[in-house]
């Protein structure tokens, strides 16, 4: 805060950026922009699908930059989110510093819970930074097909992934005839080879395998049905090295913790006081309403 006093210009910018009105305006603009985005996405969904695979920079140069009538909302979204992050950081830091200065005014438990909204604010910045990191620096190998016994080398390493076998679980029931003998749970047994070290891993839908900093995801597989059409066994992998994952997962965890803290503070500490005040006032209001209606009826009678 001493820096703010020393630099009046910086102080003025800081004050403007910490404005709650700016937060409100940004939230409303984000809502409107995302609603516009829905219309654009609905019209041209294929334009955005490569964004996760080729990254933001390459996407902007190719798909994004050439169809601005459908993608302009996305660039506006990026600008608004950047401003929202700055506003959130300045606003929260301002209030946290004030809270620390006034710590003697609060009981210990209350003081701790007063931080909950600020924890959520910082967590949101972490989540958005994670997304940005993911879109800027993720290295994606999309659709790498493996057949049993075949292997592939992870880029930049000597490590290999080998498909040992594909042992899916099939639907054996009779209640859903359309699903009869269809795969219910695809299960691939991989051999992860790192020099002399060998390790077996099970890859399934929603259960990726992590190896040498890469996330290995099951994208597709064949055959889909037991003994169906004589299709050869294969699995399609999506392999990603994503530096943003850790940030947004941690961010989500911190945000949830902050939200639980806020709800606990609201339910157990703040709300009982507010309820009591409100109920008393409400009762008083009802008595007054009752009295005034009685007076009115007396007047009508007279």
């Amino acid at each position, binding site marked *: 805060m001493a820096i703010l006093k020393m630099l009046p210009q910086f102080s003025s910018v800081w004050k403007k950026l910490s404005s709650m009105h700016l937060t409100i305006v940004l939230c409303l603009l984000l809502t409107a922009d995302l609603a516009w985005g829905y219309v654009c*996405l609905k019209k041209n969904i294929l334009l955005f699908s490569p964004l996760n695979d080729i990254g933001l920079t390459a996407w902007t140069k190719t798909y994004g930059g050439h169809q601005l009538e459908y993608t302009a909302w996305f660039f506006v979204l990026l600008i608004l989110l950047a401003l929202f992050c700055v506003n959130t950081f300045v606003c929260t830091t301002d209030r946290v510093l004030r809270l620390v200065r006034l710590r003697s005014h609060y009981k210990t438990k209350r003081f701790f819970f007063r931080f909950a909204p600020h924890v959520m604010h910082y967590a949101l910045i972490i989540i958005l930074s994670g997304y940005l990191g993911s879109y800027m620096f993720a290295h994606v190998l999309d659709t790498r097909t493996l057949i049993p016994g075949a292997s592939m080398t992870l880029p930049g390493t000597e490590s290999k992934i080998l498909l040992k076998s594909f042992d899916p679980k099939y639907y054996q029931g009779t209640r859903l005839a359309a699903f009869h003998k269809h795969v219910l749970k695809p299960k691939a047994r991989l051999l992860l080879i790192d020099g002399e070290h060998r390790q077996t891993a099970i890859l399934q839908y929603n259960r990726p395998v992590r190896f040498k900093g890469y996330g290995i995801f099951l994208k597709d597989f064949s055959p889909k049905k037991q003994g169906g059409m004589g299709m050869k066994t294969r699995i399609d992998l999506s392999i990603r090295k994503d530096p943003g994952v850790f940030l947004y997962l941690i961010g989500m965890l911190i945000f949830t913790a902050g939200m639980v803290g806020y709800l606990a503070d609201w339910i157990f500490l703040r709300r009982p006081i507010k309820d009591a005040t409100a109920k008393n006032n409400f009762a008083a209001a009802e008595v007054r309403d009752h009295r005034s209606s009685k007076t009115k009826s007396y007047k009508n009678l007279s």
Partner: protein
Amino acid sequence: MILSLTCIIALITVFFPKDFYLPFLKSNTLLAHFFFFFGVIGKGCFLVASAWAVIGLFQEHRGISQETVNTSDVTVSNSPQVSLSAHYYWFPWAVWGFAFWTLSMFSGELWSYLGWGTPVVWDDPAITTTMATWFFYICLLHLHLTGTWTARGRTAYAASGILVVLILNYIPQLGPYRWPF
């Protein structure tokens, strides 16, 4: 009012069906169900909050509840008093709605990461309307907790949530007209 709203929405979905909660191979995880159910609860809470706000505005218009409650425990800058009937009832629903909506979004993102390797899958345009609703309610909570705008303005904003939820989250889920019988 809430019952009428529920009946109207249910009736509309009968005549304009799109799809139903059909499981697919990647939805074989608890996160997929959390995403769906937390979302439904969140939307329900938002609609109830809006209904209370509409009732509050209506009562205020008729002059039924002119009593006020002092919210000294909330950071209120320019309006120290708020309408009792409106704020006292819609605010908790908005908070719970926001909490469930956030949990639904996080469950969806986690599911998306584990299933597709990325927290945002652009194949479904509904992702933008989900985020739009989230920012709309962030705005509402900030308006209330910081006391920005007048109490009436905040209640009117909460009431307008009904349109946001219906336009952004219900209408996109409607299919073409089909006679159900």
